[in-house]
Protein backbone atom coordinates (compact mmCIF):
# COMPACT_ATOMS: atom_id res chain seq x y z
CA UNK A 1 0.00 0.00 0.00
CA UNK A 2 1.25 3.43 -0.83
CA UNK A 3 0.67 6.46 1.35
CA UNK A 4 -1.87 9.07 0.21
CA UNK A 5 -1.44 11.61 2.94
CA UNK A 6 1.69 12.09 4.97
CA UNK A 7 1.83 14.48 7.90
CA UNK A 8 5.21 15.01 9.54
CA UNK A 9 6.03 16.91 12.70
CA UNK A 10 2.93 19.07 12.59
CA UNK A 11 2.82 21.74 15.33
CA UNK A 12 0.56 24.68 15.94
CA UNK A 13 0.92 27.46 18.49
CA UNK A 14 -1.80 29.89 19.50
CA UNK A 15 0.11 32.64 21.21
CA UNK A 16 1.81 30.82 24.07
CA UNK A 17 -0.40 27.77 23.83
CA UNK A 18 0.88 24.75 21.94
CA UNK A 19 -2.25 23.18 20.55
CA UNK A 20 -0.44 20.62 18.39
CA UNK A 21 2.94 19.19 19.17
CA UNK A 22 4.96 17.34 16.56
CA UNK A 23 2.20 15.10 15.24
CA UNK A 24 2.97 12.48 12.56
CA UNK A 25 0.28 10.69 10.64
CA UNK A 26 0.10 8.62 7.47
CA UNK A 27 -2.91 7.39 5.55
CA UNK A 28 -2.60 4.77 2.84
CA UNK A 29 -4.72 4.23 -0.21
CA UNK A 30 -8.16 2.95 0.72
CA UNK A 31 -7.61 3.00 4.44
CA UNK A 32 -9.99 4.18 7.14
CA UNK A 33 -7.92 5.79 9.85
CA UNK A 34 -9.42 7.07 13.08
CA UNK A 35 -8.11 9.89 15.20
CA UNK A 36 -9.27 9.69 18.77
CA UNK A 37 -8.54 11.43 22.01
CA UNK A 38 -10.27 13.28 24.81
CA UNK A 39 -12.00 16.60 24.19
CA UNK A 40 -9.49 19.35 23.62
CA UNK A 41 -6.74 16.97 22.57
CA UNK A 42 -6.26 18.93 19.34
CA UNK A 43 -8.02 16.67 16.85
CA UNK A 44 -10.07 19.37 15.20
CA UNK A 45 -7.08 21.70 15.26
CA UNK A 46 -5.23 18.96 13.41
CA UNK A 47 -7.99 18.90 10.76
CA UNK A 48 -7.93 22.67 10.48
CA UNK A 49 -4.17 22.64 10.03
CA UNK A 50 -4.09 20.08 7.27
CA UNK A 51 -7.03 21.64 5.40
CA UNK A 52 -5.49 25.09 5.37
CA UNK A 53 -7.89 26.86 7.74
CA UNK A 54 -5.00 27.35 10.14
CA UNK A 55 -1.42 27.78 9.03
CA UNK A 56 0.68 25.24 10.95
CA UNK A 57 3.60 26.60 12.92
CA UNK A 58 5.89 23.75 11.93
CA UNK A 59 5.76 20.50 10.02
CA UNK A 60 4.71 19.35 6.58
CA UNK A 61 1.60 17.97 5.00
CA UNK A 62 2.06 16.05 1.76
CA UNK A 63 -0.58 14.67 -0.51
CA UNK A 64 0.47 11.94 -2.93
CA UNK A 65 -1.34 11.96 -6.20
CA UNK A 66 -0.14 9.22 -8.51
CA UNK A 67 3.59 9.84 -8.70
CA UNK A 68 3.25 13.43 -7.66
CA UNK A 69 3.86 14.62 -4.11
CA UNK A 70 2.10 17.87 -3.37
CA UNK A 71 3.00 19.91 -0.32
CA UNK A 72 -0.14 21.28 1.24
CA UNK A 73 1.16 23.59 3.95
CA UNK A 74 0.62 27.23 3.18
CA UNK A 75 -2.13 26.38 0.70
CA UNK A 76 -5.53 28.01 1.11
CA UNK A 77 -8.49 25.81 2.10
CA UNK A 78 -10.03 25.99 -1.36
CA UNK A 79 -6.76 24.92 -2.96
CA UNK A 80 -6.49 21.97 -0.60
CA UNK A 81 -10.00 20.92 -1.53
CA UNK A 82 -9.27 21.29 -5.22
CA UNK A 83 -6.20 19.09 -4.79
CA UNK A 84 -8.34 16.29 -3.43
CA UNK A 85 -8.98 16.56 0.28
CA UNK A 86 -12.52 17.25 1.50
CA UNK A 87 -13.95 17.50 4.97
CA UNK A 88 -17.06 17.67 7.10
CA UNK A 89 -17.43 19.73 10.24
CA UNK A 90 -17.89 18.82 13.85
CA UNK A 91 -20.79 21.24 14.26
CA UNK A 92 -22.56 20.77 10.96
CA UNK A 93 -21.85 23.58 8.52
CA UNK A 94 -24.34 23.17 5.73
CA UNK A 95 -25.74 26.05 3.70
CA UNK A 96 -28.99 26.05 5.63
CA UNK A 97 -31.16 28.16 3.34
CA UNK A 98 -30.19 26.39 0.14
CA UNK A 99 -31.85 23.25 -1.11
CA UNK A 100 -30.34 19.83 -0.56
CA UNK A 101 -29.40 19.55 -4.20
CA UNK A 102 -27.84 23.00 -4.24
CA UNK A 103 -25.73 22.14 -1.23
CA UNK A 104 -24.18 19.28 -3.14
CA UNK A 105 -23.87 21.35 -6.29
CA UNK A 106 -21.73 23.85 -4.41
CA UNK A 107 -19.36 20.96 -3.79
CA UNK A 108 -19.06 20.59 -7.56
CA UNK A 109 -17.70 24.13 -7.79
CA UNK A 110 -14.03 23.21 -7.92
CA UNK A 111 -14.65 20.53 -10.57
CA UNK A 112 -16.49 22.89 -12.91
CA UNK A 113 -15.34 25.95 -14.76
CA UNK A 114 -18.17 28.14 -16.01
CA UNK A 115 -17.61 31.79 -15.14
CA UNK A 116 -19.71 34.91 -15.18
CA UNK A 117 -19.62 35.22 -18.96
CA UNK A 118 -20.79 31.66 -19.35
CA UNK A 119 -23.55 32.26 -16.83
CA UNK A 120 -24.79 35.24 -18.77
CA UNK A 121 -24.53 33.75 -22.26
CA UNK A 122 -25.70 30.26 -21.31
CA UNK A 123 -23.76 28.75 -24.14
CA UNK A 124 -24.12 25.01 -24.84
CA UNK A 125 -20.88 24.18 -23.02
CA UNK A 126 -22.01 25.89 -19.85
CA UNK A 127 -25.42 24.31 -20.09
CA UNK A 128 -23.96 20.87 -20.52
CA UNK A 129 -21.66 21.44 -17.58
CA UNK A 130 -24.50 22.62 -15.37
CA UNK A 131 -26.66 19.65 -16.33
CA UNK A 132 -23.78 17.30 -15.64
CA UNK A 133 -23.28 18.93 -12.28
CA UNK A 134 -26.96 18.55 -11.43
CA UNK A 135 -27.00 14.90 -12.41
CA UNK A 136 -23.82 14.01 -10.57
CA UNK A 137 -25.09 15.76 -7.47
CA UNK A 138 -28.36 13.90 -7.70
CA UNK A 139 -26.51 10.63 -8.02
CA UNK A 140 -24.57 11.44 -4.86
CA UNK A 141 -27.80 12.17 -3.06
CA UNK A 142 -29.07 8.78 -4.14
CA UNK A 143 -26.00 7.18 -2.62
CA UNK A 144 -26.71 8.79 0.76
CA UNK A 145 -30.41 8.17 0.37
CA UNK A 146 -31.45 11.80 0.31
CA UNK A 147 -32.59 11.95 -3.32
CA UNK A 148 -36.23 12.07 -2.40
CA UNK A 149 -35.83 15.30 -0.48
CA UNK A 150 -33.51 16.94 -2.99
CA UNK A 151 -35.81 19.95 -3.33
CA UNK A 152 -36.11 20.47 0.42
CA UNK A 153 -34.33 23.34 2.20
CA UNK A 154 -31.33 21.96 4.06
CA UNK A 155 -32.28 23.45 7.41
CA UNK A 156 -35.48 21.39 7.44
CA UNK A 157 -33.63 18.07 7.36
CA UNK A 158 -33.31 15.86 10.41
CA UNK A 159 -30.00 15.83 12.22
CA UNK A 160 -28.89 12.53 10.80
CA UNK A 161 -29.89 13.56 7.30
CA UNK A 162 -27.86 16.75 7.67
CA UNK A 163 -24.79 14.69 8.57
CA UNK A 164 -25.28 12.54 5.50
CA UNK A 165 -25.82 15.59 3.35
CA UNK A 166 -22.56 17.03 4.58
CA UNK A 167 -20.80 13.83 3.53
CA UNK A 168 -22.46 13.91 0.11
CA UNK A 169 -21.40 17.52 -0.29
CA UNK A 170 -17.81 16.66 0.58
CA UNK A 171 -17.93 13.75 -1.87
CA UNK A 172 -19.02 16.12 -4.62
CA UNK A 173 -15.55 17.66 -4.61
CA UNK A 174 -14.23 14.26 -5.77
CA UNK A 175 -11.71 13.89 -2.95
CA UNK A 176 -8.89 11.44 -2.59
CA UNK A 177 -8.94 11.79 1.15
CA UNK A 178 -12.14 12.41 3.08
CA UNK A 179 -11.91 13.91 6.54
CA UNK A 180 -14.92 13.27 8.77
CA UNK A 181 -15.13 15.26 11.99
CA UNK A 182 -17.33 13.35 14.45
CA UNK A 183 -19.89 12.18 11.90
CA UNK A 184 -21.82 10.13 14.45
CA UNK A 185 -22.10 12.84 17.09
CA UNK A 186 -25.67 13.16 18.26
CA UNK A 187 -26.89 10.06 16.43
CA UNK A 188 -28.72 7.15 18.01
CA UNK A 189 -27.21 3.65 17.75
CA UNK A 190 -29.45 2.75 14.82
CA UNK A 191 -28.39 5.82 12.86
CA UNK A 192 -24.75 5.24 13.78
CA UNK A 193 -24.89 1.74 12.33
CA UNK A 194 -26.41 3.05 9.14
CA UNK A 195 -23.70 5.68 8.98
CA UNK A 196 -21.02 3.02 9.34
CA UNK A 197 -22.47 1.17 6.39
CA UNK A 198 -22.60 4.37 4.41
CA UNK A 199 -18.97 5.24 5.10
CA UNK A 200 -17.83 1.73 4.16
CA UNK A 201 -19.83 1.86 0.97
CA UNK A 202 -18.43 5.24 0.02
CA UNK A 203 -14.90 4.02 0.53
CA UNK A 204 -15.42 0.97 -1.61
CA UNK A 205 -17.23 2.76 -4.41
CA UNK A 206 -14.80 5.61 -4.70
CA UNK A 207 -11.51 4.03 -3.70
CA UNK A 208 -10.74 6.79 -1.30
CA UNK A 209 -9.07 7.07 2.06
CA UNK A 210 -10.90 8.28 5.10
CA UNK A 211 -9.62 10.03 8.20
CA UNK A 212 -12.16 10.00 10.97
CA UNK A 213 -12.46 11.84 14.26
CA UNK A 214 -14.97 10.03 16.39
CA UNK A 215 -15.95 9.52 20.00
CA UNK A 216 -18.17 6.51 19.40
CA UNK A 217 -15.75 3.74 20.29
CA UNK A 218 -17.91 1.03 18.83
CA UNK A 219 -17.82 2.69 15.47
CA UNK A 220 -14.11 3.47 15.67
CA UNK A 221 -13.14 -0.05 16.65
CA UNK A 222 -15.30 -1.78 14.08
CA UNK A 223 -14.47 0.42 11.11
CA UNK A 224 -10.92 1.62 11.38
CA UNK A 225 -7.93 -0.06 9.84
CA UNK A 226 -5.67 1.93 12.10
CA UNK A 227 -6.11 4.33 15.00
CA UNK A 228 -4.10 7.33 16.16
CA UNK A 229 -4.57 8.56 19.71
CA UNK A 230 -3.93 12.15 20.77
CA UNK A 231 -3.70 13.85 24.09
CA UNK A 232 -2.73 17.44 24.90
CA UNK A 233 -1.81 18.09 21.30
CA UNK A 234 0.59 15.17 20.99
CA UNK A 235 0.24 11.78 19.46
CA UNK A 236 0.49 9.22 22.23
CA UNK A 237 -0.20 6.04 20.36
CA UNK A 238 -0.85 4.54 16.92
CA UNK A 239 -1.81 1.10 15.74
CA UNK A 240 -4.56 -1.31 14.84
CA UNK A 241 -7.74 -1.35 16.93
CA UNK A 242 -6.52 -4.41 18.75
CA UNK A 243 -3.23 -2.77 19.64
CA UNK A 244 -4.89 0.40 20.81
CA UNK A 245 -7.35 -1.52 22.88
CA UNK A 246 -4.56 -3.06 24.85
CA UNK A 247 -2.29 -0.04 24.99
CA UNK A 248 -2.01 0.87 28.69
CA UNK A 249 -1.14 4.49 27.99
CA UNK A 250 -4.27 4.95 25.93
CA UNK A 251 -6.40 3.27 28.50
CA UNK A 252 -5.02 5.54 31.14
CA UNK A 253 -5.21 8.73 29.15
CA UNK A 254 -8.39 8.33 27.31
CA UNK A 255 -10.51 5.38 28.13
CA UNK A 256 -10.29 5.76 31.85
CA UNK A 257 -10.76 2.72 34.08
CA UNK A 258 -11.64 0.14 31.45
CA UNK A 259 -15.18 1.25 30.92
CA UNK A 260 -15.44 0.00 27.36
CA UNK A 261 -16.47 -3.31 25.95
Amino acid sequence: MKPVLEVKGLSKNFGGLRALNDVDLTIHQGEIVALIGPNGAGKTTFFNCITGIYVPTEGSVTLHKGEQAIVLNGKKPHEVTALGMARTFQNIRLFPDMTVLENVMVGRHCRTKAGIIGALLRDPITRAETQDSIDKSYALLESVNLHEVYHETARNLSYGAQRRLEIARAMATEPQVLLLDEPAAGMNPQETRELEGLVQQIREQNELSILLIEHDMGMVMSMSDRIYVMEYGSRIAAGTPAEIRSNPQVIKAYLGEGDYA
Partner: protein
Amino acid sequence: MDFQYFLELFFGGLTRGSIYALIALGYTLVYGIIELINFAHGEVYMIGAFTALIVAGLLGFTGFPAAGILVVAALAAVIWCAAYGYTLEKVAYKPLRGAPRLSPLISAIGMSIFLQNYVLLSQTSDFVPFPRLLPEFDFLEYIGYIMGPSDFLILVTSTCTMVALTCFIRYTKMGKAMRATAQNRKMAMLLGIDADRIISLTFIVGSALAAIGGVLIASHMGQVNFNIGFLAGMKAFTAAVLGGIGSLPGAMLGGMVLGLCESFTTGYISGNYEDVLAFGILIVILIFRPDGILGKAKVQKV
Protein backbone atom coordinates in the same frame (compact mmCIF):
# COMPACT_ATOMS: atom_id res chain seq x y z
CA MET B 1 4.87 80.80 21.65
CA ASP B 2 4.89 77.71 19.55
CA PHE B 3 4.89 75.46 22.56
CA GLN B 4 1.94 77.39 23.86
CA TYR B 5 0.09 76.77 20.57
CA PHE B 6 0.92 73.10 20.88
CA LEU B 7 -0.55 73.08 24.38
CA GLU B 8 -3.65 74.88 23.17
CA LEU B 9 -4.24 72.30 20.50
CA PHE B 10 -3.38 69.51 22.88
CA PHE B 11 -5.97 70.51 25.44
CA GLY B 12 -8.52 71.28 22.75
CA GLY B 13 -8.01 67.78 21.40
CA LEU B 14 -8.19 66.31 24.87
CA THR B 15 -11.55 67.95 25.56
CA ARG B 16 -12.94 66.73 22.29
CA GLY B 17 -11.39 63.32 22.82
CA SER B 18 -12.90 62.91 26.25
CA ILE B 19 -16.35 63.35 24.75
CA TYR B 20 -15.56 60.75 22.10
CA ALA B 21 -14.32 58.49 24.86
CA LEU B 22 -17.53 58.83 26.87
CA ILE B 23 -19.62 57.78 23.89
CA ALA B 24 -17.11 55.17 22.80
CA LEU B 25 -17.45 53.44 26.17
CA GLY B 26 -21.06 52.68 25.32
CA TYR B 27 -20.08 51.02 22.04
CA THR B 28 -17.35 49.04 23.66
CA LEU B 29 -19.43 47.83 26.61
CA VAL B 30 -22.16 46.53 24.34
CA TYR B 31 -19.75 45.02 21.86
CA GLY B 32 -17.83 43.33 24.63
CA ILE B 33 -20.92 41.50 25.78
CA ILE B 34 -23.03 40.72 22.73
CA GLU B 35 -20.64 41.49 19.86
CA LEU B 36 -23.08 43.94 18.36
CA ILE B 37 -22.23 47.32 16.92
CA ASN B 38 -24.98 49.33 18.53
CA PHE B 39 -25.44 51.69 15.65
CA ALA B 40 -28.18 53.64 17.40
CA HIS B 41 -25.84 54.65 20.22
CA GLY B 42 -25.10 58.03 18.64
CA GLU B 43 -28.83 58.69 18.57
CA VAL B 44 -29.03 58.00 22.30
CA TYR B 45 -26.42 60.69 22.78
CA MET B 46 -28.52 63.06 20.71
CA ILE B 47 -31.65 62.20 22.68
CA GLY B 48 -29.73 62.89 25.88
CA ALA B 49 -28.87 66.36 24.65
CA PHE B 50 -32.47 67.01 23.63
CA THR B 51 -33.93 65.77 26.89
CA ALA B 52 -31.56 68.00 28.81
CA LEU B 53 -32.53 70.90 26.58
CA ILE B 54 -36.22 70.40 27.26
CA VAL B 55 -35.82 69.99 30.99
CA ALA B 56 -33.44 72.92 31.22
CA GLY B 57 -35.79 75.03 29.12
CA LEU B 58 -38.73 74.27 31.39
CA LEU B 59 -36.74 74.95 34.53
CA GLY B 60 -35.32 78.07 32.94
CA PHE B 61 -38.78 79.62 32.90
CA THR B 62 -39.14 79.04 36.61
CA GLY B 63 -36.02 80.99 37.44
CA PHE B 64 -34.05 78.15 38.95
CA PRO B 65 -30.32 78.85 39.50
CA ALA B 66 -28.21 77.90 36.47
CA ALA B 67 -26.00 75.37 38.22
CA GLY B 68 -29.06 73.67 39.67
CA ILE B 69 -30.68 73.50 36.26
CA LEU B 70 -27.60 71.90 34.80
CA VAL B 71 -27.55 69.18 37.42
CA VAL B 72 -31.28 68.44 37.17
CA ALA B 73 -31.21 68.49 33.37
CA ALA B 74 -28.22 66.18 33.28
CA LEU B 75 -29.90 63.84 35.72
CA ALA B 76 -33.07 63.76 33.64
CA ALA B 77 -31.02 63.11 30.51
CA VAL B 78 -29.21 60.24 32.18
CA ILE B 79 -32.43 58.67 33.42
CA TRP B 80 -34.26 58.97 30.14
CA CYS B 81 -31.35 57.82 28.06
CA ALA B 82 -30.95 54.81 30.28
CA ALA B 83 -34.62 54.08 29.68
CA TYR B 84 -34.18 54.54 25.94
CA GLY B 85 -31.16 52.24 25.97
CA TYR B 86 -33.06 49.61 27.88
CA THR B 87 -36.07 49.80 25.59
CA LEU B 88 -33.92 49.83 22.50
CA GLU B 89 -32.32 46.57 23.51
CA LYS B 90 -35.62 44.95 24.41
CA VAL B 91 -37.34 45.97 21.19
CA ALA B 92 -34.72 45.83 18.52
CA TYR B 93 -31.94 43.51 19.65
CA LYS B 94 -33.25 40.97 22.11
CA PRO B 95 -35.63 39.31 19.64
CA LEU B 96 -32.64 38.86 17.35
CA ARG B 97 -30.36 37.04 19.69
CA GLY B 98 -29.17 33.94 17.91
CA ALA B 99 -30.10 35.33 14.50
CA PRO B 100 -27.44 35.60 11.78
CA ARG B 101 -24.82 38.17 12.66
CA LEU B 102 -25.96 40.81 10.22
CA SER B 103 -29.60 40.87 11.31
CA PRO B 104 -29.06 42.79 14.55
CA LEU B 105 -26.76 45.19 12.73
CA ILE B 106 -29.40 45.99 10.13
CA SER B 107 -31.93 46.32 12.92
CA ALA B 108 -29.58 48.71 14.71
CA ILE B 109 -29.18 50.86 11.60
CA GLY B 110 -32.95 50.89 11.21
CA MET B 111 -33.32 51.96 14.82
CA SER B 112 -30.80 54.73 14.32
CA ILE B 113 -32.71 56.12 11.34
CA PHE B 114 -35.95 55.74 13.23
CA LEU B 115 -34.79 57.60 16.32
CA GLN B 116 -33.30 60.41 14.25
CA ASN B 117 -36.58 60.95 12.46
CA TYR B 118 -38.57 60.51 15.62
CA VAL B 119 -36.78 63.50 17.10
CA LEU B 120 -36.95 65.38 13.79
CA LEU B 121 -40.71 64.96 13.59
CA SER B 122 -41.57 65.41 17.25
CA GLN B 123 -39.24 68.35 17.78
CA THR B 124 -37.76 70.33 14.92
CA SER B 125 -35.27 70.15 12.11
CA ASP B 126 -33.60 73.42 13.11
CA PHE B 127 -30.63 73.85 15.35
CA VAL B 128 -32.02 74.69 18.76
CA PRO B 129 -29.98 76.85 21.13
CA PHE B 130 -29.10 75.18 24.39
CA PRO B 131 -29.37 77.42 27.45
CA ARG B 132 -26.03 78.61 28.77
CA LEU B 133 -25.65 76.85 32.04
CA LEU B 134 -21.93 76.36 32.40
CA PRO B 135 -20.43 78.72 34.90
CA GLU B 136 -18.36 81.35 33.14
CA PHE B 137 -15.52 82.36 35.37
CA ASP B 138 -12.19 83.78 34.40
CA PHE B 139 -10.05 81.36 36.21
CA LEU B 140 -6.31 81.82 35.93
CA GLU B 141 -5.66 84.21 33.11
CA TYR B 142 -2.77 82.22 31.62
CA ILE B 143 -4.46 78.86 31.61
CA GLY B 144 -7.54 80.51 30.17
CA TYR B 145 -5.81 80.61 26.82
CA ILE B 146 -5.16 76.93 26.89
CA MET B 147 -8.52 75.83 28.12
CA GLY B 148 -11.67 77.63 29.08
CA PRO B 149 -13.92 76.81 32.02
CA SER B 150 -16.20 74.63 29.94
CA ASP B 151 -13.29 72.62 28.55
CA PHE B 152 -12.14 72.21 32.12
CA LEU B 153 -15.56 71.08 33.26
CA ILE B 154 -15.81 68.59 30.40
CA LEU B 155 -12.42 67.14 31.18
CA VAL B 156 -13.16 66.84 34.90
CA THR B 157 -16.63 65.39 34.44
CA SER B 158 -15.59 62.86 31.86
CA THR B 159 -12.55 61.81 33.86
CA CYS B 160 -14.67 61.35 36.98
CA THR B 161 -17.25 59.38 35.02
CA MET B 162 -14.62 57.11 33.55
CA VAL B 163 -13.02 56.51 36.94
CA ALA B 164 -16.43 55.75 38.40
CA LEU B 165 -17.16 53.33 35.57
CA THR B 166 -13.85 51.57 36.04
CA CYS B 167 -14.53 51.16 39.75
CA PHE B 168 -18.03 49.92 39.01
CA ILE B 169 -16.78 47.31 36.57
CA ARG B 170 -13.91 46.25 38.73
CA TYR B 171 -15.25 46.18 42.24
CA THR B 172 -19.01 45.81 42.33
CA LYS B 173 -20.84 42.53 42.06
CA MET B 174 -22.74 43.65 38.99
CA GLY B 175 -19.58 44.88 37.36
CA LYS B 176 -17.91 41.54 37.95
CA ALA B 177 -20.93 39.79 36.50
CA MET B 178 -20.61 42.02 33.45
CA ARG B 179 -16.99 41.12 33.01
CA ALA B 180 -17.74 37.44 33.41
CA THR B 181 -20.51 37.63 30.81
CA ALA B 182 -18.23 39.45 28.41
CA GLN B 183 -15.61 36.76 28.70
CA ASN B 184 -17.83 33.75 28.37
CA ARG B 185 -21.56 34.13 28.31
CA LYS B 186 -22.36 30.42 28.58
CA MET B 187 -20.06 29.96 31.53
CA ALA B 188 -21.49 33.00 33.27
CA MET B 189 -24.99 31.64 32.81
CA LEU B 190 -23.95 28.33 34.30
CA LEU B 191 -22.65 30.23 37.30
CA GLY B 192 -26.08 31.65 37.87
CA ILE B 193 -25.63 35.04 36.22
CA ASP B 194 -28.76 36.18 34.45
CA ALA B 195 -27.29 37.12 31.07
CA ASP B 196 -30.41 39.01 29.96
CA ARG B 197 -30.20 41.25 32.98
CA ILE B 198 -26.52 41.87 32.42
CA ILE B 199 -27.14 42.80 28.80
CA SER B 200 -29.87 45.22 29.84
CA LEU B 201 -27.55 46.66 32.43
CA THR B 202 -24.88 47.16 29.81
CA PHE B 203 -27.23 49.12 27.61
CA ILE B 204 -28.36 51.20 30.58
CA VAL B 205 -24.82 52.05 31.65
CA GLY B 206 -23.68 52.78 28.08
CA SER B 207 -26.66 55.02 27.39
CA ALA B 208 -26.18 56.90 30.63
CA LEU B 209 -22.59 57.64 29.64
CA ALA B 210 -23.74 58.83 26.23
CA ALA B 211 -26.27 61.10 27.94
CA ILE B 212 -23.54 62.72 30.01
CA GLY B 213 -21.55 63.26 26.82
CA GLY B 214 -24.62 64.75 25.16
CA VAL B 215 -25.30 67.20 27.96
CA LEU B 216 -21.66 68.27 28.15
CA ILE B 217 -21.36 68.91 24.45
CA ALA B 218 -24.72 70.60 24.15
CA SER B 219 -23.90 73.05 26.90
CA HIS B 220 -20.41 73.54 25.50
CA MET B 221 -21.47 74.15 21.90
CA GLY B 222 -24.75 75.78 22.77
CA GLN B 223 -26.80 74.03 20.09
CA VAL B 224 -28.66 70.81 19.49
CA ASN B 225 -30.07 69.27 16.35
CA PHE B 226 -31.54 65.89 15.43
CA ASN B 227 -28.55 65.08 13.27
CA ILE B 228 -25.66 65.51 15.72
CA GLY B 229 -25.73 61.87 16.75
CA PHE B 230 -24.55 60.43 13.46
CA LEU B 231 -21.18 62.13 13.20
CA ALA B 232 -20.44 62.01 16.92
CA GLY B 233 -21.48 58.35 16.94
CA MET B 234 -19.21 57.52 14.02
CA LYS B 235 -16.29 59.34 15.59
CA ALA B 236 -16.85 57.59 18.90
CA PHE B 237 -17.11 54.26 17.15
CA THR B 238 -13.83 55.03 15.43
CA ALA B 239 -12.37 55.77 18.85
CA ALA B 240 -13.65 52.48 20.22
CA VAL B 241 -12.19 50.53 17.30
CA LEU B 242 -8.95 52.45 17.50
CA GLY B 243 -8.50 51.54 21.13
CA GLY B 244 -9.62 47.96 20.63
CA ILE B 245 -13.34 47.33 20.67
CA GLY B 246 -14.43 45.52 23.79
CA SER B 247 -11.72 47.07 25.92
CA LEU B 248 -12.68 49.88 28.31
CA PRO B 249 -9.25 51.51 28.69
CA GLY B 250 -8.99 51.10 24.92
CA ALA B 251 -12.09 53.19 24.35
CA MET B 252 -10.75 55.94 26.57
CA LEU B 253 -7.35 55.88 24.93
CA GLY B 254 -8.90 55.69 21.46
CA GLY B 255 -11.09 58.70 22.16
CA MET B 256 -8.14 60.77 23.31
CA VAL B 257 -5.96 59.70 20.41
CA LEU B 258 -8.65 60.53 17.88
CA GLY B 259 -9.39 63.88 19.50
CA LEU B 260 -5.70 64.78 19.50
CA CYS B 261 -5.22 63.64 15.91
CA GLU B 262 -8.08 65.82 14.74
CA SER B 263 -6.96 68.80 16.74
CA PHE B 264 -3.37 68.65 15.53
CA THR B 265 -4.29 68.05 11.90
CA THR B 266 -6.63 71.02 11.91
CA GLY B 267 -4.19 73.16 13.86
CA TYR B 268 -1.06 72.42 11.89
CA ILE B 269 -2.29 71.36 8.48
CA SER B 270 -5.92 71.92 7.55
CA GLY B 271 -9.38 71.16 8.82
CA ASN B 272 -10.82 70.46 5.40
CA TYR B 273 -10.29 66.75 5.73
CA GLU B 274 -11.00 66.39 9.43
CA ASP B 275 -13.82 63.91 8.91
CA VAL B 276 -12.01 62.10 6.13
CA LEU B 277 -9.18 61.60 8.61
CA ALA B 278 -11.47 59.95 11.16
CA PHE B 279 -13.08 57.66 8.60
CA GLY B 280 -9.66 56.91 7.16
CA ILE B 281 -8.33 55.89 10.56
CA LEU B 282 -11.39 53.71 11.05
CA ILE B 283 -10.86 51.89 7.76
CA VAL B 284 -7.12 51.47 8.17
CA ILE B 285 -7.46 50.13 11.71
CA LEU B 286 -10.22 47.71 10.78
CA ILE B 287 -8.26 46.38 7.85
CA PHE B 288 -4.80 46.16 9.32
CA ARG B 289 -5.32 45.81 13.04
CA PRO B 290 -8.96 45.07 13.76
CA ASP B 291 -8.13 44.47 17.39
CA GLY B 292 -7.04 48.06 17.89
CA ILE B 293 -4.30 49.34 20.13
CA LEU B 294 -5.23 47.47 23.29
CA GLY B 295 -7.44 44.66 22.02
CA LYS B 296 -6.28 41.06 21.93
CA ALA B 297 -6.40 39.00 18.78
CA LYS B 298 -9.12 36.38 18.79
CA VAL B 299 -8.83 32.99 17.19
CA GLN B 300 -11.54 32.26 14.70
CA LYS B 301 -13.51 29.26 15.86
CA VAL B 302 -14.30 26.57 13.33
